[in-house]
C-alpha cells in the first residue's frame, strides 16, 4: 500500500517547518494582544500540539480508507470532529494550568477563532492526503496497466511463434527423414541448419537490439530449410550492402513477416516463387522491404491474415512510439511489406 505524504522525509520537514511557523505566529499574535511572553508560548504549544497529532491521524486514516469523490462530506465531518476534540483538549489543559482571570476569559472568548484555525489546518492536511493518495493510486493503476500490456505482448508473440513453428518443425523433420536414406549428406546439413535456426530463435533478449547481419543470417537458414522442403519452387533474393548489415534492429522482428511471406507466397501457391528482401537506408532510417507473390482468390478468404503483421507493428510502436513504421501494399499478386527502423 502507498505511503502517506508524511512518510516522505522532505514533506515531513516542510510539515514540521509549517507548524513551527504557525506556532510562532500564534504566540506573536497573543503577545501583540497584550499577553505575557511565557503565557503566549505555552498557549501556542498546547493549542498546536493536538493539531499536529490530528494531522498525523488524518493522513494515516486516509491511507487505509480513501472515500469516493462524492463522499467528501465524510471527510468534512471527520475534520470538524477532530477540530472539536483538539479544542477541547487544549482548552482543558489551559484552564487547569493557569489561574489568571483575564487570560481565562480571553481563552473562552477566542474559542470560535481557535476552532476556525484548527479546522482549516486539519482540513488542509486532509485535502493534501486525499490528493496524494489519489495520485498514488493512479500511478499504481498506470503501472498495472503497462505490466498487463507487457505480459499480453509477450503472450501474443509466444502464441504467434507457436502457431507457425510446430508445423514447420514437424515438416522439416519429415524432410530430413526422407533425405536420410537417399541423400545422407543433405540430411546432415539440414539437421545442422535446423538446429542453428532454432537456437537463433530461442536465445534473444527482447530489448537488446541486434545487428541486421545476424537477423539476415537467421532468415537465410529458415529460407534454406524451406528450399529443401519445396525443392526448386522457392527462390530468394536478399539485397543488403555492408554498411547496412551493421545497423541495429529489434531481434526476430523480420521473422514473422518472412513467415507470412512464405505462408502466402509458398504454402498457398503452386508455381515457382521468388521471395525478395531488399534493404536500403533513407534519412538515417533503415528500410526493409519484403516481397512475396500471393493468390488473391484464396488469400482473401483465408483466415489468420495480418496477425503477425499487427504484432510487429505493436512492437515497433512500443519501441519507437510511432505508428507509421509498417506499410503494406498489394498489386498484381505481389504483396510488399515495408518496415522502417529508426537508427537512434
Amino acid at each position, binding site marked *: 500500500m502507498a505511503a502517506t505524504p508524511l512518510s516522505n522525509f522532505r514533506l515531513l520537514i516542510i510539515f514540521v517547518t509549517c507548524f513551527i511557523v504557525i506556532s510562532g505566529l500564534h504566540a506573536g499574535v497573543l503577545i501583540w494582544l497584550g499577553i505575557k511572553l511565557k503565557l503566549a508560548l505555552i498557549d501556542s504549544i498546547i493549542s498546536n500540539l493536538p493539531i499536529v497529532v490530528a494531522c498525523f491521524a488524518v493522513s494515516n486514516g486516509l491511507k487505509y480508507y480513501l472515500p469516493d469523490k462524492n463522499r467528501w462530506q465524510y471527510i468534512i465531518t471527520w475534520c470538524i470532529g477532530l477540530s472539536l476534540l483538539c479544542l477541547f483538549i487544549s482548552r482543558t489543559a489551559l484552564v487547569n494550568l493557569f489561574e489568571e482571570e483575564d487570560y481565562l476569559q480571553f481563552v473562552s472568548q477566542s474559542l470560535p477563532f481557535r476552532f476556525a484555525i484548527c479546522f482549516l489546518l486539519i482540513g488542509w492536511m486532509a485535502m493534501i492526503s486525499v490528493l496524494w493518495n489519489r495520485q498514488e493510486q493512479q500511478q499504481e493503476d498506470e503501472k498495472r496497466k503497462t505490466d498487463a500490456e507487457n505480459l499480453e505482448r509477450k503472450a501474443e508473440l509466444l502464441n504467434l511463434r507457436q502457431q507457425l513453428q510446430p*508445423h514447420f518443425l514437424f515438416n522439416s*523433420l*519429415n524432410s530430413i527423414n*526422407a533425405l536420410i536414406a537417399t541423400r545422407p549428406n543433405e540430411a546432415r546439413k539440414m539437421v545442422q541448419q535446423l538446429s542453428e535456426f532454432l537456437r537463433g530463435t530461442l536465445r534473444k533478449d527482447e530489448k537488446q537490439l541486434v545487428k541486421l547481419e545476424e537477423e539476415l543470417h537467421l532468415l537465410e537458414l529458415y529460407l534454406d530449410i524451406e528450399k529443401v522442403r519445396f525443392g526448386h519452387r522457392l527462390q530468394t533474393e536478399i539485397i543488403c550492402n555492408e554498411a547496412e548489415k551493421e545497423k541495429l534492429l529489434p531481434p526476430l522482428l523480420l521473422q514473422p513477416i518472412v513467415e507470412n511471406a512464405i505462408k502466402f507466397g509458398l504454402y*498457398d501457391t503452386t508455381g515457382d516463387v521468388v521471395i525478395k528482401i531488399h534493404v536500403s537506408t533513407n534519412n538515417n532510417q533503415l528500410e526493409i522491404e519484403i516481397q512475396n507473390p500471393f493468390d488473391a482468390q*484464396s488469400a482473401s*478468404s483465408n*483466415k489468420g491474415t495480418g496477425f503477425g503483421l499487427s504484432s510487429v507493428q505493436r512492437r515497433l510502436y512500443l519501441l519507437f512510439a510511432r505508428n507509421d513504421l509498417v506499410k503494406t501494399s498489394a498489386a498484381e499478386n505481389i504483396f510488399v511489406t515495408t518496415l522502417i527502423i529508426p537508427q537512434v
Partner: protein
Amino acid sequence: MTKVIIIDDEPLARSLVREGLSTMAGFKIVAECGDGFEGMKSIQQHTPDLIFLDIQMPKISGFEMLELLEKPPAVIFITAFDEFAIKAFEANAVDYLLKPFSQERFEAAIKKFITKRGGEPEIKSTQKLLETVAQAAPQNMRIVVKSGNKIKIISLPEVIYFEAADDYVNVVTAEGSFLKNKTMNFFEHSLDPLQFVRIHRSYILNVQHITRIEVYEKENYVAILKSGKQIPVSKSGYARMKEVLGM
C-alpha cells in the same frame, strides 16, 4: 492391384510414402499430385482405391478437396500438426499418419486399410469426418465448389443465400449459383448464426443482403433482397430473424 494416389505439396514427403509402399506387394502408385486441384482431377481420372492425403496444401486443403468428390476413395491422412484435424480423426476413428512416421506405423495403417475394406462404406465415414471437421475448425470463412470443370472458392460474405435442391444445396452469389453436396442442416449448424439465418425449410439467408421484410398473406412473410429478389420466410423463420436482427 490396389491403385494408390499420393497427394502432398512436398516432394520429399511424397517420396517417403512411395518408399514405404515399395516394400508392400499389391499396391501400385498411379499418380502423385502436389495440390488439391491436381489431386481431384487425378482421382476422377484414375478412380484409385486408396489415397494418401496431406491436409495443408496450396489453394484448397485436403478436406476441401474431399468435399468436392462425389465418391471419395479410402483415405489415409498425413499431417504434421493440425490439432483440430487430429481431434476429428480420433472422433471418427479415421486412420492418420503424423509426420515424420515410422515404417511400422505406415504398415499398420496399410493393414488397417486392408481389413476395413468391405466394412462401412467409405463415403459415409468420410462424410461424417468432414462434418466434424467443419464444426471443429476455427470458423471457416469460405466454401469450395465445383463449377463445370473448374473449382471455385467462394468467401462467405459473398454468399447471398443457400437454397435446398434435392440432395444438394444451391449456393447463390452475385456471380451465379453453385451446387454443393451438403445438407441444409449442415450449413445451418456450421455457419455463424448471427450472419446466416434459416428463414425457411428451403432457405438460409445472409442477413447482410436483406433490405426489408414484408407481410405476404396472413401469417407468411417475404424477405426482399438488395437485388430485388423475394424469398419466402416461414413463421418460425420470421421469429429467428427477429431475434437475430434485434427487432
